């Protein structure tokens, strides 16, 4: 049993499903946390202080990084195997089959966009917050306190190109989740013809909530920077 998670196609898919589920739950938490920044700057900074360089926040960050790494590495392994299984000679005529979503056939490409966005996001926020605290600093490169998340959000999203890049990132995440959420239920076997419309509806709701929650913060701070 120990090795079916790497030896078997269904085991590898289970790993993708479980790690994906974990990441969706984290994203929902992160989105909820971000929305607080619109409602209350003090409230948001209190959360930032709570999630600083404390042992539980560091443990959470390590588990999260592991989750992203596992999901990403397995996606690469699965794609290499799938390309090999498809063979060297490809069809000269290809079509999109009826009822097949574009996102379902482009999950890896969407994943790459999400990882690139994640890199930018870590540079913009994590490296100026938790990392600064970890290294014992009291101010980040921009001169703010590492626990002053709102100041960092205000600074970052007053620049139009970051707003544009983050919105592209959220669109990629939206597409990824519209397929990913229902797909994780299918992979563990919790799906049937009655539940497909419900699961796909749930996927769209989760993806749209995540998009709107994240985008609202970016747009709100950009608009307030113009006023």
């Amino acid at each position, binding site marked *: 049993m120990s090795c079916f998670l790497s030896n078997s196609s269904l085991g590898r898919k289970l790993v993708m499903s479980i790690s994906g589920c974990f990441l969706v739950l984290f994203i929902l938490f992160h989105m909820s946390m971000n929305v607080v920044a619109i409602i209350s700057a003090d409230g948001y900074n209190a959360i930032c202080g709570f999630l600083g360089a404390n042992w539980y926040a560091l443990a959470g960050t390590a588990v999260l990084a592991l989750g992203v790494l596992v999901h990403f590495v397995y996606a690469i392994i699965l794609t290499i195997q799938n390309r090999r299984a498809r063979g060297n000679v490809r069809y000269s005529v290809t079509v999109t*089959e009826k009822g*097949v979503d574009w996102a379902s056939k482009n999950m890896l490409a969407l994943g790459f966009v999400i990882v690139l966005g994640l890199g930018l996001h870590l540079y913009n926020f994590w490296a100026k917050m938790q990392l600064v605290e970890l290294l014992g600093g009291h101010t980040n490169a921009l001169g703010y306190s590492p626990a002053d998340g709102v100041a960092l959000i205000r600074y970052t999203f007053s620049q139009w190109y970051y707003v544009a890049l983050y919105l592209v990132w959220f669109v990629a995440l939206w597409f990824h989740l519209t397929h990913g959420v229902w797909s994780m239920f299918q992979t563990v076997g919790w799906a049937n013809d009655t539940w497909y419309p419900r699961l796909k509806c749930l996927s769209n709701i989760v993806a749209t909530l995540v998009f709107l929650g994240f985008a609202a913060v970016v747009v709100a701070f950009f608009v307030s920077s113009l006023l």
Partner: protein
Amino acid sequence: MNFTLKIWRQKDAKSKGEFKKYEVKDISSDTSFLEMLDILNNDLVHKGEEPVAFDHDCREGICGMCSLHINGHAHGPEQGVTTCQIYMRQFKDGETIVVEPWRSAAFPVIKDLVVNRGAYDQILQAGGYVSVRTNSVPDGNAIPIAKADADESMDAAACVGCGACAATCKNGSAMLFVAARVSSLAKLPQGRVEGARRAKAMVAKMDELGFGNCTNTGACQAECPKSISIAHIARLNREFLSAKLED
């Protein structure tokens, strides 16, 4: 009706193939696609050329022998039918029709449009059967089976093993085929007994033969000539994972 055909020609498994163009003229709209290929082959033989090799047998949609990837679709443009049930009236007069063999590493081309689908037989041999003693034919109602279960089993049993699922899947996955076999037996009392062993053995053989990993695109069910649902893949996932957790 007149058509231009772009057909994949390949001398044998080792040779490099290429598309060749053929013109077929005065084809009746009621001619089946395979009859149209017969007419083409008749012309080729009369000209002293090598006829196009393609698989076919029953020509009534039940044997799963015919294949062909036509204009980007496994089994042609119609949904829920095999290639032998495609008729020339479904194409436009003067249309160029591109005909390719199944493309999947597990289905190597033998000649022209004929591929070796022996991999599916090997998966079946690994566990797609019932080995418990069922004795002689029992009375029809001796074992009560719920109508819904019997229906689901029959829906899965409609799989003709043609290979369209793996040929369509961008990952070259045979999951719909394996799922249909596992599901049709798992829903019946005689097949249920060996459900766990069957799921593990068939998945292991599928992986060993180099089929890809399913990513739930649903392309297989869209192109399946028997419209088999990916709900059977969900059942295979359940069967396999619960069997593995019991190990």
